[in-house]
């Protein structure tokens, strides 16, 4: 909701300061100057609205008009094809006013406004993030017509008795109804000012609910007044998004018949209005099957949501042939490597040339071209990977633990560069610190004046530009005005991103150790940010419940991924950079398509906020960890949960697959690092075709078999895990003395 509102406000503050960038943004987002080059328009325009609710659109139009965003009104109407009812009288009034103010700039300004309008329908499209203007009246009005408040308990217990009396096979499925019905009935009572009835209702049936809804019930029980409903986003979302239940046809018929016999219209109305029952044919699911999938704010994911094709394969390495040539030169020039090794690498290169059938097109998302330094890095990577240790249950990785001493509980985020040479820490005191973990010290580039004196033709110019006087093992980056919640290195090690409580994401240069850009837009704490594996793009997610996709050279987001019902707590790029995964406090994980901003997967099953995500190196699987101490494994292609790893006793903040994907490492607040046999976990499931067809999973309870090792640290929560290119596991965390 903030995302929509912030647009116009922000506009005013920024238009004076950055007019030139402003016009740049205009050309990109209005879509008329779209070109294939990366700098101006890296992505094709977002998918046009297809079948949205007329009413919602009208409401948006009203909102825009009230805020005098006439151009947006125009564009939105044109795009939505709503030419009929509105006429252009508003344009004269408000649009004219703006035009007068600043003739030359007005055009760019006004078209700039279209940015927000382009974003707005998208948001409303993808789900139900609503405006303050819409929510209270529209959303709650559904509750206005009422039956006798005293009968609510009778209705509910009637249904309860019925469900308890049905056959066992149906009971588990129908029990899913309890929680959403309970919440809606309670809220209805509250909304209609029957405070005492509501309290009595809560007290009587609150204890029956599943234990994993405890946290929500705690929120709910504090809420006893109609006024409280207004400000509470969580419950408004409960209202606007229909709670999804998956029930077999037989069970549904049974329920329908019962409600019709009893003329229990109250409950029937709620089911009709607020619940979405996804009916499937076949055997009713068992209790354990249901439990494994439930727990999120809005019920399970609808089946059709996860049917979209996801290109989860890896991109083929286009540069392979180039570095091979380079490499020969390099090897001969610099080190004079023996010839044997080259042939080995040749074979490796040809292997990866085969196109994965599941991979997206190479240019589906425009990616930055490789620079020479990137190619050198690739070569380094390949050299290192030939020395990689092959891990497995018999061959566990060594773990090197980096403890932050004297951090006084202030360490909030850690990241390693891919080549494990640098380590960055984000702290609660708003600073970011960078350490070199190799003997090579960190040096700044010389100042502009000094740079002029350097002979640019000399061979070691890259060495000469560095200021030897500034060499030190660590550097401090100051600039944020609140705790830094995440840091992320760019793959080329030239940049660092940090996101903070102050609502900004900052881009830092690791050449000069200064801040380059502050990306504003979230306006609320930004919980996580992550660089794309190819650089250039990055994604951020925060308290405003949206994730944003940015490009480093644009100060406005390229995509806004809206749909989560609560804070976006963690964000990760898919290894092929075409998708973004986000985890949220609403206990779901969503996968978004970078190309069109659509949500292509919704994974439910966590019973607490999701705090860590990790893609397997082959891009097929996703692992997620949450506050409940469980790691869940997901098959992205089929959209299925395929494993549950139990063992941790506290929030899991770090997850990482080994470089070849055989081992999953998880690090938690409970001061342990655990290693899991991911090969086995994935193999067990991949053989099973039936589950893939129906979507109903039987999770084997084999956490203990999959657990390969538990390593306790000394009162040091594990905040980050990283596998070096040779498969050494690096862990990091802040030592807390008590």
């Amino acid at each position, binding site marked *: 909701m903030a995302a929509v509102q912030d647009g116009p406000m922000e506009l005013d503050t920024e238009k004076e300061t950055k007019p030139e960038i402003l016009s740049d943004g205009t050309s990109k987002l209005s879509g008329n100057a779209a070109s294939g080059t990366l700098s101006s328009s890296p992505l094709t325009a977002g998918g046009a609205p297809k079948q949205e609710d007329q009413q919602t659109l009208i409401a948006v139009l009203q909102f825009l008009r009230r805020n005098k965003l006439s151009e947006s009104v125009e564009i939105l109407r044109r795009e939505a094809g709503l030419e009929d009812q509105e006429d252009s009288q508003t344009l004269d009034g408000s649009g004219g006013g703006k035009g007068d103010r600043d003739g030359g700039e007005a055009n760019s300004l006004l078209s700039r406004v279209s940015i927000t309008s382009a974003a707005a329908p998208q948001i409303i499209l993808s789900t139900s993030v609503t405006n303050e203007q819409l929510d209270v009246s529209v959303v709650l009005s559904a509750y206005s017509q009422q039956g006798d408040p005293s009968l609510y308990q009778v209705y509910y217990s009637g249904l309860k008795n019925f469900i308890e009396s049905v056959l066992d096979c149906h009971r588990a499925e129908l029990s899913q109804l309890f929680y959403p019905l309970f919440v809606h009935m309670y809220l209805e009572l509250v909304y209609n000012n029957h405070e005492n009835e509501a309290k009595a209702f809560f007290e009587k049936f609150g204890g029956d609910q599943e234990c994993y809804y405890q946290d929500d019930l705690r929120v709910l029980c504090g809420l006893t007044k109609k006024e409280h409903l207004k400000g509470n986003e969580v419950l408004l979302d409960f209202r606007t998004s229909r709670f999804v239940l998956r029930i077999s046809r037989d069970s549904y018929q049974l329920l329908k018949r019962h409600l019709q016999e009893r003329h229990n219209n109250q409950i029937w109305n709620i089911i009709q209005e607020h619940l979405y029952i996804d009916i499937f044919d076949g055997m009713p699911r068992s209790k354990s099957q249901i439990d494994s999938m439930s727990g999120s704010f809005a019920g399970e994911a609808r089946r059709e949501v996860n049917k979209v094709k996801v290109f989860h394969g890896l991109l083929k390495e286009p540069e392979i042939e180039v570095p091979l040539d380079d490499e020969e030169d390099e090897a001969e020039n610099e080190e004079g490597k023996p010839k044997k090794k080259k042939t080995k690498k040749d074979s490796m290169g040809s292997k990866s040339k085969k196109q994965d059938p599941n991979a997206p097109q190479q240019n589906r998302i425009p990616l930055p071209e490789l620079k020479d330094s990137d190619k050198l890095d690739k070569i380094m990577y390949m050299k290192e990977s030939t020395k990689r240790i092959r891990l497995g249950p018999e061959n566990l990785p060594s773990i090197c*633990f980096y403890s932050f001493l004297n951090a006084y509980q202030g360490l909030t985020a850690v990241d390693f560069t891919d080549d494990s040479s640098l380590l960055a820490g984000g702290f609660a005191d708003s600073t970011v610190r960078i350490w070199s973990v190799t003997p090579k010290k960190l040096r700044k580039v010389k100042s502009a004046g000094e740079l002029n004196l350097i002979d640019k033709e000399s061979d070691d110019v890259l060495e000469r530009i560095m200021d030897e006087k500034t060499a030190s093992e660590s550097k401090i980056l100051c600039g944020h005005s609140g705790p830094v919640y995440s840091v992320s290195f760019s793959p080329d090690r030239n940049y660092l991103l940090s996101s903070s409580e102050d609502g900004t994401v900052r881009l830092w240069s690791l050449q000069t150790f200064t801040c380059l850009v502050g990306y504003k837009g979230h306006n609320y704490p930004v919980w996580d940010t992550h660089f794309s594996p190819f650089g250039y793009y990055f994604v951020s997610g925060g308290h405003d419940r949206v994730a944003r996709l940015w490009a480093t050279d644009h100060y406005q987001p390229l995509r806004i991924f809206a749909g989560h019902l609560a804070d976006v707590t963690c964000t990760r790029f898919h290894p092929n950079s075409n998708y973004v995964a986000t985890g949220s406090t609403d206990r779901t994980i969503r996968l978004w398509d970078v190309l069109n901003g659509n949500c292509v997967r919704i994974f439910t099953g966590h019973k607490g906020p999701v705090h860590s995500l990790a893609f397997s190196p082959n891009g097929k699987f996703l692992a997620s960890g949450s506050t409940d101490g469980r790691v869940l494994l997901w098959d992205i292609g089929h959209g299925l949960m395929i494993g549950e790893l139990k063992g941790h006793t506290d929030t899991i903040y770090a997850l990482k697959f080994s470089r070849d994907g055989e081992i999953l490492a998880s690090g938690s607040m409970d001061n342990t690092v655990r290693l899991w046999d991911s090969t086995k976990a994935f193999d067990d499931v991949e053989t099973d075709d039936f589950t893939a067809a129906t979507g109903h999973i039987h999770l084997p309870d084999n956490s203990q078999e999959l657990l390969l090792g538990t390593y306790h640290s000394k009162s040091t929560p594990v905040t980050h895990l990283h596998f070096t290119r040779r498969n050494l596991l690096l862990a990091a965390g802040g030592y807390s003395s008590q």
Partner: protein
Amino acid sequence: MAEERRQKLCSVILPTESMKAMAESVGVGSLQEDSCLALSEEVSYRIKEIAQDALKFMHHGKRRKLTTGDIDHALKLKNVEPLYGFQSQEFIPFRFASGGGRELHFYEEKEVDLSDIINTPLPRVPLDVSLKAHWLSIDGVQPAIPENPPPVPKEQQKTDSTEPLKAVKPGQEEEGSIQTKGQGASSAEVKGSSAKMVPLVMKPRSTHELSVEQQLYYKEITEACVGSCEAKRAVCVCNKCYLFLFQVRVNVVQNNLALLIYLMRMVKALMDNPTLYLEKYLHELIPAVVTCIVSKQLCLRPDVDNHWALRDFAARLMAQSCKTFSTTTNNIQSRITKTFTKALLDDKTQWTTRYGCIAGLAELGHDVIKTLIIPRLSVEGARIKAVMDGPVVSNIDKIGADHVQSLLLKHCASVVAKTRPLPDMVDQYKVDYGYLGTMLCSHVVKARAQAAFQAQTVNRTTLTITQPRPTLSVSQSGLSTSSGSRAPSIIKVPSSLTLMSTRPGTPTQPSPPATKYIVMATSAGAASTHIIESHTF
């Protein structure tokens, strides 16, 4: 139970009185009951809401503790001005008071003199964040280094040592205690060096040459223990306490007071270490501590050195271990008491030993003083008088008597003050306590005045004297679980024990290398009498 808790949650609402109080504080005089109720409900709801948001910040800050900063950030989300001035972590401004059926939380606001703040030197700058790397695991095995937690949790140590089957086979038990979960065999190898040291203790009586490695190891440990770093001492001492007894033995006979003090501090570190299951090593520790309390001579110049302080410290340690470890099966306290009493009753006991016995008993608590020391006051008084008033025998005796006297007065006065009814008549005291009566009386008067001192000593452990059990369950060392109380025996060891090699630079180097000593602990359990025997080749 969960349901109960939830109902409780549901009903938690701020009392209307606090609404009234707050209204008054901002100048609203008469607030109606209805408005109070409405306000308190609203405020309670908002507070809960803010607390929920603050929790989010705690989670993202990767902490387990909610801080005031989290609440500030949560307020900021709601566009509310944060509360300033609550940055300190320890400072909780509310104080609690109750009385007259009312409970009250209030601010404790002190007047602060600004000049004081200006004149105080600046506090030390806190240490900067630094990075330290260590191996959490090497090829899947967790190395036993100080940076990693002890491989065996305390509970497991306990089961290991109480499990009879394992206790019988010490070799097996050692391996079991060191195993990390799942990777037993290889981890034992990794920790070979420390594991190998254990048999050294298990057979204290067999005398053999220490290998060069063991000597090196011993040196390292000693340096760590004697060094100035308290933390290092606690860490290094962890699994090496068995070496400790050796050191006490050696140092007692060397009269090296400084080192003994260090060693006693080491015992303290051991006891304060919460992760250590010390019960296993009590039979090693207690004799050493007792030695430091009652030994005839602890230093080279008993007339000058303050070995009394060491005795006091050791006595306190003894009392602490009695408190912590005494159970019905090992009866440490009663056995210790018996030992002390026996020495005290002996007429020939030296003043130093006498001092130690009294100190040891006195530390055990008021009941012990009352039952064992106070009845002896007149006897001791007579003895002190004999030394003080009689012909000058030796300076050492005089000092000893003097110390015993002040010790007796110190400890008895508080007890007497509590048990004896008023008034304090000097004559009556003289009758009851003999020579010491006069001084005791004045001390008691003082003690009565110092109520605070009493309060401190009130909750000491009480003593229940029971028949000492002849057997000792902790018996890994092969120490004889003797039946009945055997007379303390002197065991002469033709010692080829070259524990103290003449390695230069070692702080524990003995002065006369030709002489070898050993201390043996025997008879009714580990915690009993100690005889020091010197044996010269």
